[in-house]
Protein backbone atom coordinates (compact mmCIF):
# COMPACT_ATOMS: atom_id res chain seq x y z
CA UNK A 1 0.00 0.00 0.00
CA UNK A 2 1.40 3.34 -0.89
CA UNK A 3 2.28 5.76 1.85
CA UNK A 4 -0.30 8.22 0.56
CA UNK A 5 -3.27 5.85 0.77
CA UNK A 6 -2.06 4.52 4.12
CA UNK A 7 -1.96 7.99 5.57
CA UNK A 8 -5.41 8.90 4.31
CA UNK A 9 -6.84 5.81 6.02
CA UNK A 10 -4.94 6.67 9.20
CA UNK A 11 -6.25 10.22 9.12
CA UNK A 12 -9.85 9.04 8.97
CA UNK A 13 -9.37 6.35 11.61
CA UNK A 14 -7.64 8.65 14.08
CA UNK A 15 -10.29 11.34 13.71
CA UNK A 16 -13.16 8.86 14.04
CA UNK A 17 -11.55 7.19 17.05
CA UNK A 18 -10.98 10.54 18.73
CA UNK A 19 -14.48 11.86 18.07
CA UNK A 20 -16.56 8.74 18.65
CA UNK A 21 -14.56 6.85 21.26
CA UNK A 22 -12.26 9.08 23.28
CA UNK A 23 -14.48 12.17 23.33
CA UNK A 24 -17.39 10.04 24.51
CA UNK A 25 -15.47 8.63 27.45
CA UNK A 26 -15.77 10.95 30.41
CA UNK A 27 -12.90 9.97 32.67
CA UNK A 28 -12.88 13.09 34.76
CA UNK A 29 -13.43 16.78 34.10
CA UNK A 30 -9.68 17.30 34.51
CA UNK A 31 -8.67 14.72 31.92
CA UNK A 32 -9.29 14.91 28.19
CA UNK A 33 -7.58 11.96 26.52
CA UNK A 34 -6.09 12.85 23.13
CA UNK A 35 -4.62 10.40 20.68
CA UNK A 36 -5.45 11.80 17.24
CA UNK A 37 -2.20 13.81 17.06
CA UNK A 38 -0.33 10.51 16.77
CA UNK A 39 -1.13 10.87 13.09
CA UNK A 40 1.42 13.68 13.02
CA UNK A 41 3.95 11.63 14.99
CA UNK A 42 3.66 8.84 12.43
CA UNK A 43 4.13 10.93 9.29
CA UNK A 44 7.23 10.05 7.23
CA UNK A 45 10.63 11.49 8.12
CA UNK A 46 11.17 12.83 4.65
CA UNK A 47 8.13 15.03 4.47
CA UNK A 48 8.56 18.64 3.50
CA UNK A 49 8.13 20.88 6.56
CA UNK A 50 5.63 23.16 4.87
CA UNK A 51 3.54 20.19 3.82
CA UNK A 52 3.82 18.77 7.34
CA UNK A 53 2.36 21.91 8.85
CA UNK A 54 -0.36 22.08 6.23
CA UNK A 55 -1.43 18.49 6.90
CA UNK A 56 -1.35 19.13 10.64
CA UNK A 57 -3.56 22.16 10.17
CA UNK A 58 -6.00 20.08 8.16
CA UNK A 59 -6.07 17.39 10.86
CA UNK A 60 -6.73 19.88 13.64
CA UNK A 61 -9.30 21.67 11.59
CA UNK A 62 -11.21 18.46 10.88
CA UNK A 63 -11.41 17.69 14.58
CA UNK A 64 -12.42 21.28 15.27
CA UNK A 65 -15.31 21.05 12.87
CA UNK A 66 -16.63 18.05 14.80
CA UNK A 67 -16.44 20.16 17.97
CA UNK A 68 -17.94 23.27 16.32
CA UNK A 69 -15.26 25.50 17.81
CA UNK A 70 -12.76 26.33 15.11
CA UNK A 71 -9.03 26.93 15.52
CA UNK A 72 -8.16 25.30 18.85
CA UNK A 73 -6.90 21.91 17.70
CA UNK A 74 -5.62 23.38 14.45
CA UNK A 75 -3.31 25.74 16.35
CA UNK A 76 -2.04 22.94 18.61
CA UNK A 77 -1.41 20.58 15.69
CA UNK A 78 0.48 23.18 13.69
CA UNK A 79 2.66 23.82 16.73
CA UNK A 80 3.69 20.20 17.13
CA UNK A 81 4.21 19.84 13.39
CA UNK A 82 6.58 22.80 13.53
CA UNK A 83 8.61 21.39 16.42
CA UNK A 84 8.66 17.81 15.19
CA UNK A 85 11.73 18.09 12.87
CA UNK A 86 13.83 19.77 15.59
CA UNK A 87 12.98 17.03 18.02
CA UNK A 88 13.75 14.27 15.52
CA UNK A 89 17.14 15.82 14.80
CA UNK A 90 17.90 15.85 18.51
CA UNK A 91 16.74 12.34 19.29
CA UNK A 92 17.68 10.30 16.24
CA UNK A 93 20.74 8.06 16.73
CA UNK A 94 24.00 8.68 14.87
CA UNK A 95 23.54 5.86 12.33
CA UNK A 96 20.89 7.85 10.54
CA UNK A 97 17.56 6.22 11.29
CA UNK A 98 15.74 8.71 9.14
CA UNK A 99 17.43 7.37 6.01
CA UNK A 100 17.01 3.73 7.01
CA UNK A 101 13.36 3.85 7.96
CA UNK A 102 10.28 5.62 6.74
CA UNK A 103 8.51 6.73 9.88
CA UNK A 104 9.28 7.39 13.55
CA UNK A 105 8.81 4.27 15.68
CA UNK A 106 10.56 2.40 18.48
CA UNK A 107 12.87 0.77 15.97
CA UNK A 108 13.77 3.76 13.86
CA UNK A 109 14.28 6.07 16.83
CA UNK A 110 16.68 3.57 18.39
CA UNK A 111 14.70 2.25 21.30
CA UNK A 112 11.65 2.85 23.43
CA UNK A 113 13.03 5.73 25.46
CA UNK A 114 13.86 8.18 22.64
CA UNK A 115 10.50 7.49 21.05
CA UNK A 116 8.64 8.09 24.29
CA UNK A 117 10.54 11.33 24.84
CA UNK A 118 9.59 12.34 21.32
CA UNK A 119 5.93 11.46 21.90
CA UNK A 120 5.93 12.92 25.39
CA UNK A 121 7.36 16.29 24.44
CA UNK A 122 5.02 16.66 21.48
CA UNK A 123 1.91 15.67 23.43
CA UNK A 124 2.92 18.06 26.19
CA UNK A 125 3.35 20.86 23.66
CA UNK A 126 0.01 19.98 22.08
CA UNK A 127 -1.83 19.98 25.39
CA UNK A 128 -0.16 23.13 26.73
CA UNK A 129 -1.05 25.15 23.68
CA UNK A 130 -4.55 23.70 23.37
CA UNK A 131 -5.52 24.17 27.00
CA UNK A 132 -3.80 27.54 27.15
CA UNK A 133 -5.96 28.81 24.29
CA UNK A 134 -9.02 27.41 26.01
CA UNK A 135 -8.00 28.77 29.42
CA UNK A 136 -7.57 32.27 27.99
CA UNK A 137 -11.33 32.44 27.70
CA UNK A 138 -11.98 31.38 31.27
CA UNK A 139 -8.81 32.53 33.00
CA UNK A 140 -8.05 29.92 35.63
CA UNK A 141 -4.32 29.20 35.46
CA UNK A 142 -4.02 26.47 38.09
CA UNK A 143 -6.87 24.52 36.67
CA UNK A 144 -5.16 24.74 33.29
CA UNK A 145 -1.81 23.50 34.68
CA UNK A 146 -3.25 20.47 36.36
CA UNK A 147 -5.40 19.63 33.38
CA UNK A 148 -2.43 19.86 31.01
CA UNK A 149 -0.31 17.61 33.19
CA UNK A 150 -2.94 14.92 33.75
CA UNK A 151 -4.07 14.89 30.13
CA UNK A 152 -0.49 14.53 28.92
CA UNK A 153 0.08 11.53 31.17
CA UNK A 154 -3.05 9.86 29.83
CA UNK A 155 -2.15 10.77 26.23
CA UNK A 156 1.31 9.26 26.64
CA UNK A 157 -0.18 6.10 28.07
CA UNK A 158 -2.52 5.88 25.09
CA UNK A 159 0.39 6.42 22.69
CA UNK A 160 2.30 3.60 24.34
CA UNK A 161 -0.67 1.24 24.20
CA UNK A 162 -1.29 2.08 20.54
CA UNK A 163 2.37 1.48 19.67
CA UNK A 164 2.33 -1.89 21.39
CA UNK A 165 -1.00 -2.96 19.92
CA UNK A 166 -0.41 -1.93 16.34
CA UNK A 167 3.10 -2.86 15.40
CA UNK A 168 3.87 -1.18 12.13
CA UNK A 169 6.01 -3.10 9.69
CA UNK A 170 9.12 -1.03 9.18
CA UNK A 171 11.06 -1.83 6.07
CA UNK A 172 14.79 -1.45 6.42
CA UNK A 173 16.07 0.50 3.50
CA UNK A 174 19.70 0.69 2.40
CA UNK A 175 21.86 3.61 3.35
CA UNK A 176 22.53 4.43 -0.25
CA UNK A 177 19.56 6.63 -0.81
Amino acid sequence: MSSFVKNIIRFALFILFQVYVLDKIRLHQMVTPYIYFMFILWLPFKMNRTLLMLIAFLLGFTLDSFNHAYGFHAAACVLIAYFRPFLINLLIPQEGGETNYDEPSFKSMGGMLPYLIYAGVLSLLHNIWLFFLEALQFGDIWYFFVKTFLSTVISLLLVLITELLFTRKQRFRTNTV
Partner: protein
Amino acid sequence: MRNIFLFIRRYSNLLFFLVLQVISIYFIVHYSRYHNAAFGNFANQFTGKVNTQYSNVQRYFNLKKTNDSLVKANEVLYNKLKANFELPDTTSKTGVDSIKVDSILQFRKYTYMAATVVSNSVSAQNNFIVLSRGKAKNVKPQMGIVDINNNVVGIVTDVTNDFAVVMSVLHKDSHISGKLLKTGEIGTVLWDGKEANSVTLTGISKGVKIAKGDSVITSGFEYSSSFPKGMLIGTVEAVYNEVSTSYVKIKIHTAANFYNLQYVYVIDYSQQESIKEIMEKVKKQL
Protein backbone atom coordinates in the same frame (compact mmCIF):
# COMPACT_ATOMS: atom_id res chain seq x y z
CA MET B 1 15.14 44.40 -1.32
CA ARG B 2 17.39 41.42 -1.88
CA ASN B 3 17.82 41.04 1.84
CA ILE B 4 14.09 40.88 2.34
CA PHE B 5 13.80 38.01 -0.13
CA LEU B 6 16.72 36.25 1.50
CA PHE B 7 15.09 36.70 4.87
CA ILE B 8 11.79 35.29 3.62
CA ARG B 9 13.53 32.33 2.03
CA ARG B 10 15.59 31.60 5.10
CA TYR B 11 12.72 31.77 7.53
CA SER B 12 9.98 30.52 5.24
CA ASN B 13 9.08 27.69 7.62
CA LEU B 14 8.84 29.94 10.62
CA LEU B 15 6.79 32.44 8.66
CA PHE B 16 4.45 29.74 7.40
CA PHE B 17 4.12 28.45 10.95
CA LEU B 18 3.23 31.91 12.20
CA VAL B 19 0.73 32.42 9.38
CA LEU B 20 -1.05 29.16 10.25
CA GLN B 21 -1.12 30.06 13.94
CA VAL B 22 -2.58 33.47 13.16
CA ILE B 23 -5.25 31.87 10.98
CA SER B 24 -6.17 29.46 13.80
CA ILE B 25 -6.33 32.20 16.38
CA TYR B 26 -8.41 34.31 14.05
CA PHE B 27 -10.88 31.40 13.85
CA ILE B 28 -10.92 31.07 17.63
CA VAL B 29 -11.61 34.74 18.21
CA HIS B 30 -14.00 35.11 15.36
CA TYR B 31 -16.00 31.94 15.51
CA SER B 32 -16.44 31.58 19.22
CA ARG B 33 -18.45 34.76 19.34
CA TYR B 34 -22.15 34.52 19.79
CA HIS B 35 -23.41 34.05 16.31
CA ASN B 36 -21.27 33.60 13.28
CA ALA B 37 -21.87 31.45 10.25
CA ALA B 38 -18.84 32.30 8.19
CA PHE B 39 -18.09 28.92 6.69
CA GLY B 40 -19.72 26.61 9.20
CA ASN B 41 -22.34 25.67 6.67
CA PHE B 42 -20.37 23.08 4.79
CA ALA B 43 -18.58 21.71 7.84
CA ASN B 44 -21.82 21.45 9.81
CA GLN B 45 -23.60 19.70 6.99
CA PHE B 46 -20.76 17.21 6.64
CA THR B 47 -20.16 16.44 10.31
CA GLY B 48 -23.90 16.37 10.85
CA LYS B 49 -24.27 13.54 8.34
CA VAL B 50 -21.52 11.52 10.02
CA ASN B 51 -22.96 12.20 13.46
CA THR B 52 -26.43 11.07 12.39
CA GLN B 53 -25.07 7.62 11.58
CA TYR B 54 -23.51 7.40 15.01
CA SER B 55 -26.51 8.64 16.96
CA ASN B 56 -28.81 6.22 15.14
CA VAL B 57 -26.95 3.41 16.85
CA GLN B 58 -26.53 5.16 20.16
CA ARG B 59 -30.21 5.96 20.50
CA TYR B 60 -31.08 2.33 21.21
CA PHE B 61 -28.93 2.25 24.31
CA ASN B 62 -30.85 5.12 25.87
CA LEU B 63 -34.38 3.98 25.06
CA LYS B 64 -35.15 3.13 28.67
CA LYS B 65 -34.08 6.49 30.03
CA THR B 66 -35.92 8.30 27.27
CA ASN B 67 -39.09 6.39 28.07
CA ASP B 68 -38.81 7.19 31.76
CA SER B 69 -38.50 10.89 31.18
CA LEU B 70 -41.36 10.85 28.67
CA VAL B 71 -43.57 9.27 31.30
CA LYS B 72 -42.57 12.03 33.69
CA ALA B 73 -43.33 14.70 31.12
CA ASN B 74 -46.71 13.11 30.48
CA GLU B 75 -47.46 13.12 34.19
CA VAL B 76 -46.86 16.86 34.33
CA LEU B 77 -49.11 17.42 31.34
CA TYR B 78 -51.92 15.22 32.70
CA ASN B 79 -51.85 17.18 35.93
CA LYS B 80 -52.47 20.36 34.02
CA LEU B 81 -55.68 19.07 32.41
CA LYS B 82 -58.76 21.15 33.05
CA ALA B 83 -60.70 18.05 34.11
CA ASN B 84 -58.53 17.67 37.19
CA PHE B 85 -59.75 20.88 38.74
CA GLU B 86 -63.12 21.41 40.33
CA LEU B 87 -64.35 24.94 40.46
CA PRO B 88 -66.63 26.13 43.25
CA ASP B 89 -70.14 26.36 41.93
CA THR B 90 -70.83 29.96 42.80
CA THR B 91 -68.08 31.40 40.66
CA SER B 92 -68.43 29.23 37.62
CA LYS B 93 -71.11 30.03 35.12
CA THR B 94 -71.73 28.37 31.86
CA GLY B 95 -72.09 30.88 29.09
CA VAL B 96 -71.43 31.23 25.40
CA ASP B 97 -68.68 33.50 24.25
CA SER B 98 -70.35 35.69 21.72
CA ILE B 99 -67.20 37.03 20.10
CA LYS B 100 -65.94 34.45 17.71
CA VAL B 101 -62.23 35.19 17.30
CA ASP B 102 -59.76 32.45 16.71
CA SER B 103 -57.86 33.52 19.74
CA ILE B 104 -55.61 30.50 19.91
CA LEU B 105 -53.90 31.18 16.62
CA GLN B 106 -53.87 34.90 17.15
CA PHE B 107 -52.12 34.93 20.46
CA ARG B 108 -49.90 31.94 20.25
CA LYS B 109 -46.56 33.05 21.66
CA TYR B 110 -44.51 29.88 21.74
CA THR B 111 -44.46 26.89 19.42
CA TYR B 112 -42.72 23.68 20.40
CA MET B 113 -40.93 21.65 17.76
CA ALA B 114 -39.43 18.26 18.50
CA ALA B 115 -35.88 17.46 17.43
CA THR B 116 -33.40 14.68 18.03
CA VAL B 117 -29.88 15.28 19.25
CA VAL B 118 -27.32 14.16 16.71
CA SER B 119 -24.19 15.02 18.61
CA ASN B 120 -23.51 16.46 22.00
CA SER B 121 -20.44 17.32 24.02
CA VAL B 122 -19.92 18.11 27.69
CA SER B 123 -16.19 17.68 28.13
CA ALA B 124 -14.99 20.55 25.93
CA GLN B 125 -14.56 24.10 27.17
CA ASN B 126 -17.22 25.33 24.79
CA ASN B 127 -19.94 22.81 24.24
CA PHE B 128 -22.27 22.54 21.31
CA ILE B 129 -25.21 20.30 20.55
CA VAL B 130 -26.25 19.42 17.01
CA LEU B 131 -29.91 18.78 16.21
CA SER B 132 -31.29 16.90 13.24
CA ARG B 133 -33.66 19.68 12.33
CA GLY B 134 -32.64 22.74 10.38
CA LYS B 135 -33.71 25.66 8.27
CA ALA B 136 -35.88 23.42 6.11
CA LYS B 137 -38.00 22.60 9.15
CA ASN B 138 -38.34 26.11 10.55
CA VAL B 139 -35.45 26.23 12.99
CA LYS B 140 -33.84 29.65 13.15
CA PRO B 141 -30.95 31.11 15.16
CA GLN B 142 -31.83 32.51 18.60
CA MET B 143 -34.48 29.90 19.29
CA GLY B 144 -34.42 28.31 22.73
CA ILE B 145 -33.86 24.61 23.35
CA VAL B 146 -35.35 22.69 26.28
CA ASP B 147 -35.17 19.01 27.13
CA ILE B 148 -38.18 16.70 27.38
CA ASN B 149 -39.08 17.88 30.87
CA ASN B 150 -38.89 21.58 29.96
CA ASN B 151 -35.46 22.23 31.44
CA VAL B 152 -33.25 24.79 29.73
CA VAL B 153 -30.55 23.34 27.46
CA GLY B 154 -29.30 26.11 25.16
CA ILE B 155 -29.87 28.50 22.29
CA VAL B 156 -29.60 27.86 18.54
CA THR B 157 -26.64 29.71 17.04
CA ASP B 158 -26.26 28.34 13.57
CA VAL B 159 -28.50 26.50 11.11
CA THR B 160 -27.95 24.66 7.88
CA ASN B 161 -30.65 23.08 5.75
CA ASP B 162 -30.88 19.85 7.74
CA PHE B 163 -29.06 20.57 11.00
CA ALA B 164 -28.97 23.16 13.75
CA VAL B 165 -26.02 23.91 16.02
CA VAL B 166 -26.99 24.77 19.57
CA MET B 167 -24.78 26.61 22.04
CA SER B 168 -25.48 24.73 25.23
CA VAL B 169 -25.60 26.40 28.62
CA LEU B 170 -22.15 24.87 29.08
CA HIS B 171 -20.47 27.47 26.86
CA LYS B 172 -18.50 30.53 27.79
CA ASP B 173 -20.69 32.85 25.73
CA SER B 174 -23.91 31.57 27.17
CA HIS B 175 -25.56 34.32 29.23
CA ILE B 176 -29.01 33.17 30.13
CA SER B 177 -30.99 35.44 32.38
CA GLY B 178 -32.10 33.44 35.40
CA LYS B 179 -34.42 34.23 38.25
CA LEU B 180 -34.77 32.87 41.76
CA LEU B 181 -38.26 31.44 41.94
CA LYS B 182 -38.82 32.28 45.62
CA THR B 183 -37.66 35.86 45.83
CA GLY B 184 -37.75 36.95 42.20
CA GLU B 185 -34.19 38.32 42.02
CA ILE B 186 -32.75 38.28 38.53
CA GLY B 187 -29.19 37.37 37.62
CA THR B 188 -27.17 35.86 34.81
CA VAL B 189 -26.38 32.17 34.47
CA LEU B 190 -22.82 31.52 33.34
CA TRP B 191 -20.54 28.51 32.97
CA ASP B 192 -17.05 28.47 34.45
CA GLY B 193 -15.76 25.85 32.01
CA LYS B 194 -15.15 23.10 34.51
CA GLU B 195 -17.87 20.72 35.56
CA ALA B 196 -20.73 19.64 33.33
CA ASN B 197 -24.19 19.88 34.89
CA SER B 198 -22.99 22.69 37.14
CA VAL B 199 -23.34 26.41 36.34
CA THR B 200 -23.21 29.64 38.35
CA LEU B 201 -25.77 32.37 38.84
CA THR B 202 -24.18 35.80 39.25
CA GLY B 203 -25.53 39.25 39.92
CA ILE B 204 -27.64 38.42 42.97
CA SER B 205 -26.98 40.86 45.84
CA LYS B 206 -25.81 39.69 49.23
CA GLY B 207 -28.96 40.50 51.17
CA VAL B 208 -31.14 37.95 49.43
CA LYS B 209 -32.08 34.86 51.37
CA ILE B 210 -31.13 31.78 49.43
CA ALA B 211 -31.46 28.19 50.56
CA LYS B 212 -30.01 25.05 49.10
CA GLY B 213 -32.45 23.48 46.69
CA ASP B 214 -34.13 26.71 45.59
CA SER B 215 -35.24 26.69 41.97
CA VAL B 216 -33.74 28.98 39.36
CA ILE B 217 -36.00 29.65 36.40
CA THR B 218 -35.77 31.65 33.18
CA SER B 219 -36.79 35.26 33.63
CA GLY B 220 -38.01 35.80 30.09
CA PHE B 221 -35.83 38.91 29.83
CA GLU B 222 -33.18 39.91 27.36
CA TYR B 223 -30.81 36.97 26.85
CA SER B 224 -33.30 34.36 27.84
CA SER B 225 -36.10 35.87 25.78
CA SER B 226 -35.83 32.76 23.64
CA PHE B 227 -37.49 30.89 26.49
CA PRO B 228 -40.93 31.24 27.94
CA LYS B 229 -40.88 32.64 31.44
CA GLY B 230 -40.50 30.09 34.20
CA MET B 231 -38.64 27.21 32.61
CA LEU B 232 -36.43 25.44 35.11
CA ILE B 233 -32.70 26.05 34.75
CA GLY B 234 -31.56 24.28 37.90
CA THR B 235 -31.49 24.16 41.66
CA VAL B 236 -29.18 25.96 44.07
CA GLU B 237 -26.33 23.82 45.31
CA ALA B 238 -24.11 26.25 47.21
CA VAL B 239 -23.73 29.99 47.80
CA TYR B 240 -20.37 31.77 47.88
CA ASN B 241 -19.68 35.35 48.90
CA GLU B 242 -17.72 37.35 46.40
CA VAL B 243 -15.12 39.28 48.37
CA SER B 244 -14.83 42.60 46.60
CA THR B 245 -18.37 43.03 45.36
CA SER B 246 -21.80 43.20 46.87
CA TYR B 247 -22.92 40.11 45.00
CA VAL B 248 -22.98 36.44 45.79
CA LYS B 249 -22.03 33.64 43.46
CA ILE B 250 -24.54 30.80 43.42
CA LYS B 251 -23.60 27.35 42.24
CA ILE B 252 -26.47 25.71 40.43
CA HIS B 253 -26.99 22.09 39.54
CA THR B 254 -28.62 22.12 36.11
CA ALA B 255 -32.02 20.53 35.83
CA ALA B 256 -31.27 19.16 32.38
CA ASN B 257 -28.84 16.29 32.34
CA PHE B 258 -26.38 17.19 29.61
CA TYR B 259 -24.78 13.75 29.61
CA ASN B 260 -27.67 11.95 27.99
CA LEU B 261 -29.68 14.33 25.86
CA GLN B 262 -31.59 12.41 23.23
CA TYR B 263 -34.68 14.40 22.36
CA VAL B 264 -35.22 18.12 22.81
CA TYR B 265 -37.79 20.75 21.93
CA VAL B 266 -37.02 23.83 19.89
CA ILE B 267 -39.08 26.78 21.09
CA ASP B 268 -40.17 29.29 18.50
CA TYR B 269 -41.04 32.59 20.17
CA SER B 270 -43.15 34.48 17.71
CA GLN B 271 -42.72 37.88 19.37
CA GLN B 272 -38.95 37.76 19.51
CA GLU B 273 -38.56 39.83 16.37
CA SER B 274 -40.85 42.59 17.55
CA ILE B 275 -39.17 42.76 20.96
CA LYS B 276 -35.80 43.09 19.28
CA GLU B 277 -37.17 45.79 17.02
CA ILE B 278 -38.50 47.85 19.86
CA MET B 279 -35.31 47.45 21.89
CA GLU B 280 -33.21 48.68 18.99
CA LYS B 281 -35.55 51.61 18.54
CA VAL B 282 -35.11 52.55 22.19
CA LYS B 283 -31.35 52.23 21.97
CA LYS B 284 -31.30 54.56 18.97
CA GLN B 285 -33.28 57.19 20.84
CA LEU B 286 -30.84 57.16 23.73
